[in-house]
């Protein structure tokens, strides 16, 4: 038996896995009955429903013919990797990471890091341009978020501000 629609088949698998996991997790909580629902009742119901939907979606993907096989296509890791990395770097630098003794570095350094890393996700990377962009973003963010909106964001590294 061959997969007739790759996209739908794997969507169905995802639904079955997630639904199954939620339903299995729900059995750890009190389920109760319909008059007195425990915390597990609604998630158990939905989890089973999702798994069933997933099974039907996956089954249909095996049976119903599609023109081009509905291929998922190649995963392009470059943008995923850099965007997620930029985001993580921003979080780590902004808040610090006590587990590796990294102090909070504040917004300014975090913004520069985020801009540099995320720009790598694009096809063109011109360092000079990106540096100018990050400087603009630092100034712009400082003016809007700190001066105008007065948000509580650490601006400078904690070892400087004390």
């Amino acid at each position: 038996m061959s997969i007739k629609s790759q996209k739908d088949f794997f969507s169905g698998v995802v639904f079955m896995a997630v639904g199954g996991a939620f339903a299995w997790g729900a059995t750890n909580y009190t389920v109760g009955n319909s008059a007195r629902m425990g915390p597990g009742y609604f998630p158990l119901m939905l989890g089973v429903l999702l798994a069933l939907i997933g099974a039907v979606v996956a089954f249909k993907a095996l049976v119903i013919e599609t023109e081009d096989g509905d291929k998922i296509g190649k995963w392009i890791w470059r943008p995923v990797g850099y965007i997620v990395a930029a985001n993580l770097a921003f979080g780590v630098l902004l808040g610090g990471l006590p587990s590796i003794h990294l102090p909070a570095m504040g917004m300014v350094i975090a913004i520069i890091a985020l801009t540099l890393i995320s720009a790598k996700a694009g096809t063109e990377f011109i360092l000079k341009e990106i540096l100018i962009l990050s400087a603009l973003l630092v100034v712009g963010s400082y003016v809007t978020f700190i001066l105008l909106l007065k948000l509580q964001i650490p601006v400078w590294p904690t070892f400087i501000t004390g």
Partner: protein
Amino acid sequence: MDLIANLSLGFGVAFTPINLLYAFIGCILGTLIGVLPGIGPVATIAMLLPATYALPPVSALIMLAGIYYGAQYGGSTTAILVNLPGESSSIVTCIDGYQMARKGRAGPALAAAGLGSFFAGCVGTLILAAFAPPLTELAFKFGPAEYFSLMILGLIGAVVLASGSLLKAIGMIVLGLLLGLVGTDVNSGVARYSFDIPELTDGIGFVAVAMGVFGYGEIISNLALPEEHREVFTAKVQGLWPTKQDFKDMTPAVLRGTFLGSALGILPGGGALLASFAAYALEKKMKGKPGEVPFGKGNIRGVAGPESANNAGAQTSFIPLLTLGIPPNAVMALMVGAMTIHNIQPGPQVMTSNPELFWGLIASMWIGNLMLIVLNLPLIGMWIKLLTVPYRWLFPAIVLFCAIGVYTTNNSTFDIWLVAAFGFIGYAFNKLGMEPSPMMLGFILGPMMEENLRRALLLSRGDWSVFVTRGLSAGLLVAAALMLVIVLLPSIKKKREEAFVED
């Protein structure tokens, strides 16, 4: 008449200098983020939410509302001139709007979008003002069973009218409902699916989900596409005013779009995005006049219809929020946040306990629409300049705004990790052809549905028939079932699939 007395109270509130100022700021910001692709009202409102603490509640809500409907105006500009949806609700505007621009008719396309939006905005505001009081009356008759059935109707309505596979969309809704249940169960105090992570006991922040799936997911998908040459029609916009024939063609489309958009906005689960899709499908099905430009080749109706619908939908989607306390989409869920910051519980009691807020907000929408038409038609050149900024400078900025926006909602870095995770998940959804919008809706309504289901069944002592023996509830469920049956009828199923094929 009551309506006039109420509206005059509203205009009294909206016309104070401070509220005019905040309406103006909201409209400008809304247009700005509408024009810029990749950053939407959700990210913007999330960023501004903490800043509204200091404002009076009316001014805060007026500004946030302005961002939402302002984005509907701005989004069309980008769609028409660059073939990129500036806002998700402008996706269908790209199809015919960009083709018009390629034929040198960018001006009339922009005017059709702007004028259509303005008309729809005015009608939407009136509908909001006229329908809110009777619906509020009705809302007081709603018990938990009715709320539950209403949410079912909204969820079904959202998938029926959305594009793509029906079953997968329902799956996404259930997935969203499940994700919405993560966190402490209000009845028993049990922390569900939180894996002993303290931040998860408060639930997954929906700002993090929305920005991850929509914000990052979209950037990643854009960058993963092979770079294509996009022509930006910036120099060629002249002759803004449509011809007489254009007016003749677009007027019925504007009327249909306004009507459809207003109706879909009222439905929980509706709003701007759904309205624009449905309006485009409707216009496509309407028989054209002989000699009319075909759809997909630059038909003005394909611009006027959806653009009117999305603005009408944006206005009327305030109805479920203000009358029932149910947020019909992600933006309205943020509005709930904005109201709770100021100790206002959204629901039918808002109109009686805070009439100046209720009517002031409605009146400000009309004023806002007036500001927007001025901002978007005579001053269009200003926004076009923005579009010449290349994407490689834009997307790092958008990543930054999403990161800051999500950080400021809770001042916690945990939410930043969540966005990263949901960014990846968003890309996976995109790859597998799974639509994130129904999931978002399920996510928002999940806890509310569980709560009302519990209460309804507690009152009926576990008897499920309560949902069909109570008249109102039964009516809502019948409407939901009818919608499902109608789309599953073979002839309509085929048409629905045709309507969503973009060519």
